[in-house]
């Protein structure tokens, strides 16, 4: 049963929840990370007359103490939507975000920029980044649901990665919809994002905007068309007799199928100019920088090192040629690997890392040089050349053999004899031919060799078995065993004699039984078995003393009957009780030996 505590607000929470809240508060109180502040518009392209939502978010923060929102020159209207806070616990890690939202309406087409401004978060002053959205000229829309294709510009360069958006506007709530169909003839479709939903106000009416963001790369020059595009969806049309605002927020009304269509948009794709085109230009378009590093710069000749080239920037990384190390005598370059880490969801910006294993065998080499690579910058409309700075290295001569088995820095490179050293690090040749040997599978490689190796143990087992058999044969009677002298028949005869009180017959049978049973155990002829054998043979063989006493008692009975008087029937029955355990003990003794 969970105890509950009544709190003033009227909400009831369990003690477990209270404990979790306290832990959460404690975790939050203990946080020492500096707040990370970001600022963003919910859409990158809007039409003039629309509103756009601007959000400032502080991660790892508890409160925004003060905010100095800047004066915006081309602002037609604005509204502070207030502050919201969100706390998440993911895999035990607590994170909290606090956001301040504004609804803004630009006053003119063009770039709408919110410059960097200061705010105080948890007592610390932080600065937001400058963010920008593009305000497109107003278009006339007669429908309540429409689709449009948006690009930042109308002119691009062949090979340039074009970010584009497909925006669906709806004055009604959207019930369901299929993915949009977009014709991209002449383009290669790149990455795409999951659609995002936002709200805007156009002419005083709320609209839902679904944005599908993706990239495309033109494959030829000239005028190319993106689109047309279409999208089937179902919208909820509010009923006539209810307040529209009520329906917008709380649903209601009837679902209606609609097809939204967007006309094709023509883009002018320019060829990169021939003028000033470097000979090594391979079609890369964008803006890139590069940096090269080596895993070690001071090493022994013959050691393998890894050269890493990191190319960062924005553009078509796929068409970027792999930066190359300059080949020269004394350097061996191996085929490398590359990896790309995108810096945004569309892969427009990012970092590509190339890694190559290199072996420098000539100690005279002092630097690793790189071949420059070129790209076309679509913003400046110029070709740029990236020349990587050479890496200075110090290549040590290998130590002579006998001094060290490896180089001083612990690598796998091995020393070579001065007589054979030609930079390859090989150990010297053998002088004597030695004995000619066969490389054919030897005796020990044969699959049956394990059986041969185990043969001594097998021989030992056979020997033991043979010895046991021999002993049995030695002790066995020379003639066939008399069925009347078998244990069972003698025991039966003994029991009858005890029951009938036939003492002479009883002791005679008992004597026979003891002789027949003891003789093979002690390894003596049956007629030589007497009470003395208990001490001389059976006890040393491991017969328990208790069983020895029992046997002695039986022998005494036999002797008394033979030399003394006649026992009573009761005595015979009592003596019978000792016979079976004594015989069992003899059998066990025989097994053990």
């Amino acid at each position, binding site marked *: 049963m969970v105890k509950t505590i009544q709190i003033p607000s009227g909400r009831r929470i369990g003690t477990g929840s209270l404990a979790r809240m306290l832990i959460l508060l404690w975790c939050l109180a203990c946080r020492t990370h500096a707040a990370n502040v970001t600022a963003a518009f919910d859409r990158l392209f809007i039409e003039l007359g629309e509103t756009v939502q601007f959000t400032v978010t502080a991660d790892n923060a508890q409160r925004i103490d003060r905010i100095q929102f800047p004066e915006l020159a081309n602002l037609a209207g604005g509204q502070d939507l207030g502050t919201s806070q969100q706390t998440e616990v993911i895999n035990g890690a607590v994170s909290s975000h606090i956001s301040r939202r504004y609804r803004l309406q630009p006053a003119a087409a063009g770039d709408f920029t919110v410059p960097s401004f200061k705010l105080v978060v948890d007592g610390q002053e932080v600065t937001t980044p400058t963010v920008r959205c593009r305000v497109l000229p107003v278009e006339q829309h007669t429908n309540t649901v429409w689709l449009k294709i948006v690009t930042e510009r109308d002119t691009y360069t062949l090979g340039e990665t074009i970010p584009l958006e497909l925006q669906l506007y709806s004055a009604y709530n959207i019930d369901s919809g299929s993915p949009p169909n977009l014709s991209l003839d002449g383009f290669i479709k790149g990455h795409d994002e999951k659609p995002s939903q936002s709200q805007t106000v156009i002419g005083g009416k709320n609209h839902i905007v679904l944005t599908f963001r993706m990239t495309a790369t033109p494959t030829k020059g000239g005028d190319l068309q993106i689109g047309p595009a279409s999208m089937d969806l179902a919208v909820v049309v509010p009923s006539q007799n209810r307040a529209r605002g009520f329906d917008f927020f709380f649903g209601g009304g009837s679902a209606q199928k609609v097809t939204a269509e967007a006309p094709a948009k023509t883009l002018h794709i320019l060829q990169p100019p021939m003028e000033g085109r470097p000979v090594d230009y391979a079609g890369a378009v964008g803006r890139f920088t590069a940096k090269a590093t080596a895993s070690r710069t001071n090493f022994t000749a013959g050691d393998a090192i890894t050269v890493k080239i990191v190319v960062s920037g924005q553009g078509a990384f796929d068409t970027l040629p792999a930066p190359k190390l300059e080949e020269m005598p004394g350097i061996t370059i191996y085929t490398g690997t590359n990896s790309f880490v995108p810096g945004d969801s569309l892969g427009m910006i990012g970092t590509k890392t190339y890694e190559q294993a290199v072996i420098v065998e000539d100690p005279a080499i002092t630097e690793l040089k790189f071949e420059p690579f070129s790209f076309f910058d679509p913003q400046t409309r110029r070709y740029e050349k990236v020349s990587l700075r050479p890496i200075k290295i110090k290549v040590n001569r290998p130590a002579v053999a006998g001094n060290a088995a490896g180089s001083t820095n612990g690598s796998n490179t091995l020393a070579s004899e001065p007589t054979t050293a030609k930079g390859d690090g090989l150990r010297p040749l*053998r*002088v004597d031919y030695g004995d000619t040997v066969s490389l054919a599978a030897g005796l020990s490689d044969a699959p049956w060799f394990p059986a041969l*190796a185990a043969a001594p143990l097998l021989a*030992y087992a056979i020997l033991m078995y043979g010895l046991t058999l021999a002993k049995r044969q030695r002790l066995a009677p020379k003639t066939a065993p008399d069925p009347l002298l078998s244990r069972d028949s003698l025991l039966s005869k003994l029991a009858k004699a005890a029951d009938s009180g036939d003492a002479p017959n009883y002791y005679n049978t008992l004597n026979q039984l003891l002789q027949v049973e003891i003789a093979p155990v002690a390894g003596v002829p049956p007629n030589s078995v007497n009470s003395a054998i208990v001490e001389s043979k059976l006890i040393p063989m491991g017969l328990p003393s208790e069983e020895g006493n029992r046997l002695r008692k039986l022998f005494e009975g036999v002797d008394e009957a033979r030399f003394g008087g006649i026992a009573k029937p009761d005595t015979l029955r009592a003596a019978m009780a000792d016979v079976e355990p004594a015989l069992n003990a003899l059998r066990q003794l025989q097994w053990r030996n």
Partner: protein
Amino acid sequence: MKLSGIFWQILLATVLSIGGWLGSIASARADAFDDAARLYERGQALEAASMYEQIATTRGYSYALLYNMGNAYFRAGSPGMAIWAWREAEYLNPRHSDLQANLALAANRGNLPVAKGLADGTLRRIRLCESAWAAFTATLVWATLLSFGRTLPALYHKTTSLRWLAGIATLCFWALYGTKYWANLTGPNCIVVAHDTAVRFGPLEEAPVAFPAPEGSELRIVGSRNGWFQVTDSNAKPGWIDQKHVKRRLP
């Protein structure tokens, strides 16, 4: 008496002839071996490797021949063939430090996996026949000591410690032999000797690449079809490789 003298003369002549013939063989072999070394030192590594191959064909293999052949191939720019020759030499003398150094060097240069751990490292230093004969001998000693219980009881009681020692040694040697035998049974048995080749998903040139096979990498052949070997790498990743691109280890 006269007949006896003729017999002895014929016998002496035969022995001398055979001795001379054997001596001339050894001398010719030594001369060719030295000539190959001379070529190697002059920088004619490929010619040296070819001469070592010729000696092996006509005179047979020796540890030194295989070792030198590996050096010549390595210097001639054929690390795959070099590793093949060194691995064969390793079969004969796995504890030679120069050989192990050269193998490590080749692995380092070719960015090949270096033998590490008990199965690949320590076990490589022990020949299968050594572990086999050790297991056999230990078993023989242990069985003999055990048999004293029936044959020489007095000696049996005096050798209790020795019997225990022999028993433990037998178990250890058998474990070593079993591990080595298993490693030989499942380990690589061919070496890639071609540049820039790959293991493919099927026995066709058109089949997609399963994984690259750098020259000198070691694979295990598990089957063959139409001039292709079905192989697995050290991680048991399967694929197919053209038979011309690998050299099989000698059995």
